[in-house]
């Protein structure tokens, strides 16, 4: 008969060391009045329709809000993802974006 309680094992941590440092979020806005919101899309799950509805609702609350259409940035999912995301900061700055709404995580 084998009694496994006499076989003792000292087991190692199997995960790799985390490389990420926690970073602070950007400063939040006080209002959208006079601000420019960029729609960023992964081209799936009716994000275009969601953005349209959000745009309509936001205009009702903040008549001076402006929007940047998603087709100015490219597809954030698929074969173009890395390039599109890498170029995003520069493009957002060039186009004067004050805020980003990115979808669709579904």
């Amino acid at each position, binding site marked *: 008969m084998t009694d*496994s*309680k006499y*076989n*003792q*094992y*000292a*087991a*190692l*941590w*199997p*995960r*790799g*060391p*985390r*490389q*990420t*440092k*926690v*970073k*602070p*979020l*950007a*400063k*939040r*806005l006080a209002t*959208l009045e006079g601000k420019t919101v*960029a729609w*960023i899309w992964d*081209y*799936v*799950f*009716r994000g275009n*329709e*969601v953005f349209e*509805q*959000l745009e309509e*609702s*936001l205009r009702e609350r903040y008549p001076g809000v402006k929007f940047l259409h998603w087709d100015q940035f490219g*597809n*954030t*999912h*698929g*074969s173009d*993802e890395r390039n599109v*995301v*890498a170029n*995003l*900061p520069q493009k*957002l*700055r060039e186009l004067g*974006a*004050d*805020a*980003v*709404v*990115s*979808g*669709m*995580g*579904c």
Partner: protein
Amino acid sequence: MLRASVAAEAVGIPSATLVCESFMTLAKAASQGLGFPNIAVAPVRGHPGLQSKEVLQQNVRELTLDGVLNALFKTPAMVTVGGEPGARDIICSGSFEAVNEYFIKHELSDGLPIVPPTVEKVEAFLKYTERQADEVLGVMLPDNRAATVWSVAVNGVMAGCRPEYMPVLIAAVEAMVDHDYGVEHSGNTPGGDNLIVLNGPIIKELGFNYTQGVMRDGFQANTSVGRFWRLYLRNVAGFLPHKNDKATFGNTWRVVVAENEDVAAKIGWPPNCADFGFAAGCNALSVGRYTGGNHISSVSGATPEELLPYIADAVVRQYSWQIMFSVGQGYDTLRPLLLLSPIIAETIAAGGWSKQKFREELFRQARMPAQEFERILRDWTQKPTWNLTEEHAAGRIPKIFHESGDPQRLVPLVWRPDDFQVVVTGDLGRNSIYVFAHNGVLGFPVAKEIKLPKNWKALRGERG
């Protein structure tokens, strides 16, 4: 979506990420690896794919709108990420059962018993590589962890591998961290899993099955290396079900498929690794990710011309939404994989067809009507704007997808004959094939050489 939001946050632009309610746990887990654990998301009720226009609009007004405003206006509380053990830390001691209970409780196991990774066992693995234990092979999302040689050995022990599999495991992880493979997508909802295809003398040397039942568990080398891949995805990349792994259904990990190089050589077909640029006779592996596949039984005919229509038809039938990796989300990233049983490959070769000729004829015959191709693209996620005419006019796809305006014209699944991966393996005497549905850019095939240490023969001799 989160990665785009993080790119904005990093340069001082506040973001709101639209996330379906059932993806909130995933978003929380993924945000840690991205370095913004307190990033705010805005909820999307249910799934837009199943809502009428009116319901979708109502849901956006009632729920998502407030979520967007909260995310852009309110600063979320800072979240700290807890410390973790070091690579050489002992995290538990005890019996086989106690160690396994600990690993299951702490989500470090796939649910099967693991071999306790002790220092002695890990060091036995490290003898089979000239790489330094702390060498970093790459860094992987979503957890953003370093893939070290040490962690390869630890997870190899856990998976039930033998120490001499270490060069194969390292090559596998080199493929996993390759940007072209796209490991960060391994938790996406289609839930596909990888397949490792092995080539070279190491197949026989390490006892990989390359004949009957090649995709069946039951052969230590094939099975344990396949299990290793999934364990490494969990423990180092960070893909845990109900967290960063959002597979709708998922697949169990696949055992390694080794090619029958004897048959391939006999019929004059280059091995799979040669299609990735490695010389025949080289030890190498390729890895791609597949959402599923199907056994195509009893491929019958005395000539390649008689066999091909059935094979081509079977290939087309494995592909539905995945064609969007050819035209759509992932342009030119679809790479179907076919396993041909040896007797099928021999019959095709006996008709004078090279492997390249087989691929060219497959490319010519594995086609579907253009209007069907477009219908699938449009039905998938209800996006109305994709059609082949516009895609071709915009210069995004080659002419072969739009040689005329006839909606009944036949269009290929892929851009070129070489996009088909063809591997000879399986039962020597059965006339069947297996067709895998490829997951495109979310697991693009990559290949790596398996590098043996200079003292490989001596090490192997030691084991007698």
